[in-house]
């Protein structure tokens, strides 16, 4: 099967407008005849659910949380980009587009990125109208800041809780339509199977997480907005329940998984303290605006930070990248930190971090200004480490944060399975091999508010009057049986190891071999080790309790089972991509200065994998990427 990206014709700036005119429309009176199932209630899912219901579609919303407001978008701290140019500093749609394509290391689809930049301005309008309490200037206008990797101030924010406020805006819009009876919410419900009949997505099978009841929902279209797969690494900044299950089960039904090796390691997280560590905590990248990153020049320097004089400090980012300094993109900042720590210059009790120092900013601006900007982050740091960052520098280290890969989608955000749409972090489309700071919120909301509501009509319009596959169809019954049997199997193994224990083992293999730096050797090793862990899981995991009640071990077991299959694909993708780009850094492919070395000749494509069964080699499909508007160049932030 060839991948048709359905990119509209015409100049890049006109593609989206032309496309909006060309897509088929569904008559307002007919919209209620179409059922759309939305899986996930983060920024992408909640905004899509609200917008589709407002249009009149019959929307069913699935969230595994107790309340949809808890989706992990809520934890995003820093901000959201938009090409408003409110700062009069030379920003434009084209510049945001350019920065995103370049920042993504030329592995994103130009047309999608341009559309993202175009609708970014509408997102801010929409959110402001919903009452999102963005930061304001004294004159009442919206405030902006510059954010990781950008040379213009285009980031809108709400203290250090931008994700929370944007998500609550989308959640409230969604609860409004739920309250008005225009959408139906299934909370504490997990999607465990995508139902496909005759190659078309026609519904989902779910499990009620309180009662254990397995049931089906049928619809004309299924929208998966279930987030990223960072928890394949066990330790990440993702929430504990974030998982790949919805996307992976769709993949196993035929949806292609694109670029799984593109994983973003965020440079500013609190270093791990011990084995019991259950997750890593991110400190917003906005801290890099005022914080200076350094390590002692001498790896044996045991003095506390404040006793180390300027001349004995190495501000290595400022030294190596004078133009961008501490604001280089995430992948570059992360690898630079790894280089220092690997060379033994790490700081802290485990020597596993670098300093992020606010001393100079506090001297220059005063503690009050810094408090105003970052107080909640400083407090959080203090609570976790018992150290006061106003007095001593923070210790930070990179951690897995965001995953650029995801289910393959065309320009309309539909996967290769007709009827299956994929939004937000769950799809692969807009960030290429590396996402810029404050662009995840932008993409989630762009997909949900301003892309899907237009493109879904094109698929639904011709279905008017055609019957849908009902939940009594054998396809649904078979999927329900599969889900019930799956739970039974997990409960019957009764081995000796907990789900977490095996997950931790998997995560370590993936982090060590497919983390910040990868080699052919490490990846081959991981690919040989993961199946053994998978076998161990299926013969020796211990999941207690029953299926007929709330059972968090069972939920987790299902998700880890998927990571055990997915992790292998991630390594295979990383092994096949014989180049370094963005978040995918192969040590064999680097410049003399240690920067990523792309191979545009052979790898300027999207690698979309087709499932062929457990233990079988997946099939690779390629979507060639063309760069007509941003010329292929080596990224340079010097």
């Amino acid at each position, binding site marked *: 099967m060839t991948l048709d990206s359905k990119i509209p014709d015409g100049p890049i700036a006109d593609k989206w407008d032309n496309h909006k005119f060309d897509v088929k429309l569904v008559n307002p009176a007919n919209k209620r005849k179409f059922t759309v199932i939305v899986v996930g209630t983060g920024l992408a899912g909640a905004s899509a659910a609200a917008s589709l219901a407002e249009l009149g579609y019959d929307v069913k919303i699935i969230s595994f949380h107790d309340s949809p407001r808890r989706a992990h978008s809520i934890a995003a701290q820093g901000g959201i980009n938009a090409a408003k140019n409110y700062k009069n500093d030379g920003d434009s749609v084209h510049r945001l587009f350019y920065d995103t394509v370049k920042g993504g290391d030329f592995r994103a689809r130009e047309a999608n990125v341009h559309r993202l930049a175009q609708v970014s301005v509408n997102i801010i309008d929409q959110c402001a109208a919903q009452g999102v309490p963005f930061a304001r200037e004294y004159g*009442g206008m919206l405030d902006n800041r510059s954010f990781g990797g950008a040379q213009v101030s285009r980031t809108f924010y709400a203290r250090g809780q931008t994700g929370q406020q944007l998500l609550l805006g989308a959640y*409230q*819009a969604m609860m409004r339509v739920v309250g008005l009876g225009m959408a139906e919410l299934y909370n504490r419900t997990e999607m465990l199977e995508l139902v496909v009949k005759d190659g078309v997505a026609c519904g989902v099978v779910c499990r009620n997480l309180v009662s254990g009841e397995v049931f089906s929902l049928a619809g004309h279209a299924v929208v998966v907005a279930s987030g990223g797969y960072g928890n394949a690494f066990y330790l990440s900044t993702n929430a504990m329940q974030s998982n790949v299950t919805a996307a992976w089960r769709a993949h196993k039904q035929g949806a292609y998984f694109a670029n799984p090796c593109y994983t973003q390691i965020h440079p500013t*997280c609190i270093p791990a303290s011990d084995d019991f560590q259950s*997750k890593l*905590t991110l400190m917003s990248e906005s801290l890099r605006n005022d914080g200076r990153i350094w390590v002692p020049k001498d790896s044996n320097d045991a003095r506390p930070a404040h006793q180390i004089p300027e001349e004995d400090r190495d501000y290595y980012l400022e030294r190596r990248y004078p133009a961008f300094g501490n604001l280089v993109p995430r992948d570059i900042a992360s690898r630079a930190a790894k280089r220092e720590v690997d060379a033994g210059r790490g700081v802290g*009790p485990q020597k596993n971090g670098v300093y992020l120092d606010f001393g100079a900013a506090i001297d220059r601006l005063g503690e009050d200004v810094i408090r105003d900007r970052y107080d909640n982050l400083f407090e959080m740091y203090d609570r976790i480490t018992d150290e006061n960052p106003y007095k001593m520098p923070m210790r930070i280290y990179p951690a897995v944060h965001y995953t650029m890969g995801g289910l393959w989608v065309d320009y309309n955000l539909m996967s290769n399975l007709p009827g299956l749409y994929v939004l937000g972090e769950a799809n692969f489309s807009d960030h290429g091999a590396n996402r810029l700071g404050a662009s995840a919120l932008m993409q989630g909301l762009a997909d949900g508010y301003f892309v899907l509501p237009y493109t879904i009509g094109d698929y639904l319009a011709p279905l008017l009057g055609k019957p849908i596959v009902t939940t009594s169809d054998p396809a649904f019954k078979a999927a329900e049986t599969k889900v019930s049997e799956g739970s039974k199997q997990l409960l019957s193994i009764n081995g000796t190891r907990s789900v977490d224990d095996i997950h931790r083992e998997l995560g370590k293999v993936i982090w060590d071999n497919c983390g910040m730096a990868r080699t052919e050797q490490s990846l081959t090793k991981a690919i040989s080790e993961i199946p053994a862990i998978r076998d161990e899981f299926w013969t020796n995991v211990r999941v207690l309790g029953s299926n007929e009640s709330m059972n968090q071990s069972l939920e987790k077991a299902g998700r880890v089972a998927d990571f055990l299959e997915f992790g292998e694909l991630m390594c295979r993708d990383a092994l096949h991509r014989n180049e370094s780009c963005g978040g995918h850094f192969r040590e064999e492919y680097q410049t003399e200065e240690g920067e990523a070395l792309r191979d545009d000749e052979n790898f300027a494509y999207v690698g979309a994998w087709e499932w062929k069964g457990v233990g079988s080699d997946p099939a690779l499909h390629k979507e060639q990427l063309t760069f007509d508007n941003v010329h292929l160049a080596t990224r340079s932030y010097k």
Partner: protein
Amino acid sequence: MSPANGDAQTTNANMKIKVTVWRQAGPNAQGAFKDYDLDDISPEMSFLEMLDTLNEMLNDRGEEPVAFDHDCREGICGSCGMMIDGVPHGPERGTATCQLHMRKFSSGAHIKIEPFRASSFPINKDLSVDRSAFDRIIESGGYISAPTGTAPDANLIPIPKGVADVSMDAAQCIGCGACVAACPNGAAQLFTSAKLAHLNLMPQGQAERWDRTVNMVDTMESYFGSCTNHGECEAACPKEISIDFIALMNKDFVKAQLKQRRLAGQLFP
């Protein structure tokens, strides 16, 4: 070397503690307290990591792990929450359970852990409760109706910084339910008033201000108890949301009664 996945040894002496945990198999099952001894708790652990350790131990010995809600473990999603020694989220002020660390307890401590207690938060299992009544309050009016596509340019409505800041103070609520659990009456005034203040203070929120207030207060009262000004909610709130917002809600509620009558033509403006 893999610092993020941590091979390192702890340096601080580990603690021995006893926990007494509420165990309840399901919504309608009979519950009971159970004691567990934990001998090797690092002071660097978060409270939830201590519970993870307990659950590993239980799983090892064939006992079902303790169910508790949690997700982001950064104090922002609002999933976690339990009574720790009778206090929602435990002893540290302005801190959600996931951000509470064991260094706040001493070795030898005996900690009592219960689910949030309120009749409007029925127990699902062990420490997990059903807080969907909060969603019902939000859907009754906790929004500004701005269907996608209708928005004017964001800078068309200037909002004084002070207003945006106070609105943000209120909007920080994470919906964890500690305020309800702390209240002797099981009232949800702090939660409801935080959302009302967030929206009612904003210029964009004015069109629906009075209807929103009446609808949300009515819905709140159908699920939760009444406020008698104990102030426990503010003390328990992990985001330290001020009870001043309750005063604002009460004022708006009284005004809304009059406004509604005016709008209905029952009073001269």
